């Protein structure tokens, strides 16, 4: 009974966070902010469902399942990469170097650093 409650809590909390993440996509006002909602809330959303699934497998099917841990691992590894790619597309299409904070010694962020800025040196660097 207590176990069932625990599983339900995990699944419901996971579902709620998934819902909040999707709602954030509609509600937040600019493209960069919109990316925050799915990268974070969805992690805990999926995480909650997975923890529920692990408890269920351990208690009712009597086996320890590793798949949920792997899904978590793959999510943690891939979500930042996807977010980074989307951010780079946004920077490339909708910002100019002067919109962003100072990049330090070289003045440019990598996305704005295109080969035509230093045509002579990009051969030697590669």
């Amino acid at each position, binding site marked *: 009974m207590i176990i069932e409650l625990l599983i339900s809590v995990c699944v419901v909390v996971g579902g709620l966070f998934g819902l909040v993440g999707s*709602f*954030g996509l509609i509600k937040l006002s600019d493209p960069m*902010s919109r990316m925050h909602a799915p*990268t974070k809330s969805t*992690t805990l959303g999926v995480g909650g469902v997975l923890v529920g699934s692990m408890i269920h497998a351990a208690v009712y099917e009597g086996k320890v399942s*590793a798949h949920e841990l792997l899904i978590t691992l793959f999510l*943690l590894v891939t979500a930042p990469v996807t977010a980074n790619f989307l951010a780079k597309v946004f920077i490339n299409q909708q910002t100019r170097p002067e919109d962003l904070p100072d990049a*330090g010694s070289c003045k440019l962020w990598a996305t704005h650093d295109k080969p035509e800025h230093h045509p002579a040196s990009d051969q030697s660097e590669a």
Partner: protein
Amino acid sequence: MKLLNRLLPHPLLTLMLTVIWLLLVNRFSLNSLLFGFLLGLLIPVATQPYWPNRPKLKRPSKLVTYTLLVLWDIIVANVAVARIVLFMPNAKRQPAWINIPLDIRTPEAIAMLGGTITMTPGTLTADISAQGRSLLVHCLHAPDPDAVRAEIKTRYEARLKEIFE
């Protein structure tokens, strides 16, 4: 020794791939152990040109505490972002770009820092500077950008520096 290096460019990666394969199969048997090990041998050799240097871990034991810290921060981040999404009107929210000058130089450490920033409270790694000396981070709501920068540097970067350098 040189031949062994050629065959096993990343011994830790080989071990990790074998273990992940066993976990994917979800049941231990000699067959899957051997097949996992075969994958663990082939994949590092195939990806070797993209990843020539073997990353060194100075203090691997600290990786465990770091992982636990980040997992906890992810939970906190989720609640914080959910509250901003649900209760803060867009007009009151102050999104901001901040730059984070890096003290760490190891590519693997910078990649981990970038991933950590994306997964934790209200921040998202957007880009790296052209020479790899600073990270561009977007904040969902940052009334005080300097505090965010200081927190990332002390909480995550200092720990990664201990682990990798």
